[in-house]
C-alpha cells in the first residue's frame, strides 16, 4: 500500500444507529468519525477478501483430516446426530449434575 493514497470523497445516507455506532467506537479510540469509518471499512474488506481463502483452506484441512484418520465423509444427518451427542457431552462437562 502506498504511504499516501489518493482520497476520494463520497456521500452516504446511513441509518442513525450505524452512525451512532461508528461515533461510539471513534470516541472510544479518540479518532475522528471519518478515520474510524475508514478503519471499519478496511477491516470489512480484509475479512471479505480472506473468507474465500479460509473456506478453501478449511475444506483442504477437513479432507486431509479424513484421509489421515481413515474416516469417511459423514452424511449431513450423521453429522447432525454426532453434534447432538457432542451437545450432551459438552453440557455434562460444563454443567455437571
Amino acid at each position, binding site marked *: 500500500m502506498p504511504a499516501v493514497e489518493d482520497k476520494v470523497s463520497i456521500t452516504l445516507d446511513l441509518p442513525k444507529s450505524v452512525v451512532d455506532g461508528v461515533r461510539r467506537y471513534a470516541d472510544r479510540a479518540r479518532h475522528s468519525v471519518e478515520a474510524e469509518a475508514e478503519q471499519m471499512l478496511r477491516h470489512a474488506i480484509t475479512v471479505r477478501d480472506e*473468507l474465500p481463502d*479460509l473456506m478453501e483452506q478449511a475444506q483442504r484441512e477437513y479432507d486431509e483430516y479424513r484421509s489421515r484418520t481413515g474416516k469417511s465423509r459423514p*452424511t449431513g444427518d450423521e453429522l*447432525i446426530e454426532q453434534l447432538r451427542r457432542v*451437545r*450432551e457431552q459438552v*453440557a455434562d462437562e460444563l454443567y455437571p449434575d
Partner: protein
Amino acid sequence: MSSIRTDLSALDTNIYLLATRRVAGFESTSKLLSRINELRVVLPTQVLSEINNEALPFEQRTIFAHFKRAKDFIQGIGETKRDLIAHYKARGAKKGDAVICAQLHAAGVKWFVSENRHFLTEISDLPFTVLTAAEALSLLEE
C-alpha cells in the same frame, strides 16, 4: 413487528459445520452463512464450546471470520442460570438442549436456526422460533 433482520438470531453448531464442510443436501446452510451480514447474531456459550470441540483449526477460523461479518455479533458471556436449565429440563428437554435453551432465553434470542429436526419439538411455547436455514433464507427474502 418481529423480523429476522432486526431481532436477535442464533445459529446452531450444525449450521456452521454443515456450511463449512459444504455437506451435500444442506446447501442452504452455506447460503445463510453468506448472508450473515443481514443478521444480528448471538453466539451462545454452548455453541462456542461445541465449535471449539468439533471444528478443525481452519474451520474455526472460517467460522470466526463469518462472525465478524454479522450485522451485530454478541457473544454469550456469564454463567447460565441453573434455574432456567432446570425449567427446560422439567419440560422435557435433554440436558444439552436445556442448556442452549436457557442461554437463548437469557440473551433474548427470537430466532434459532438449526437443521436438527428434533430440536425441542416437545416444547410448544418456546420464547424463540426454531427454523431451518432454508426457512431463515425465506424470511430474509420477505
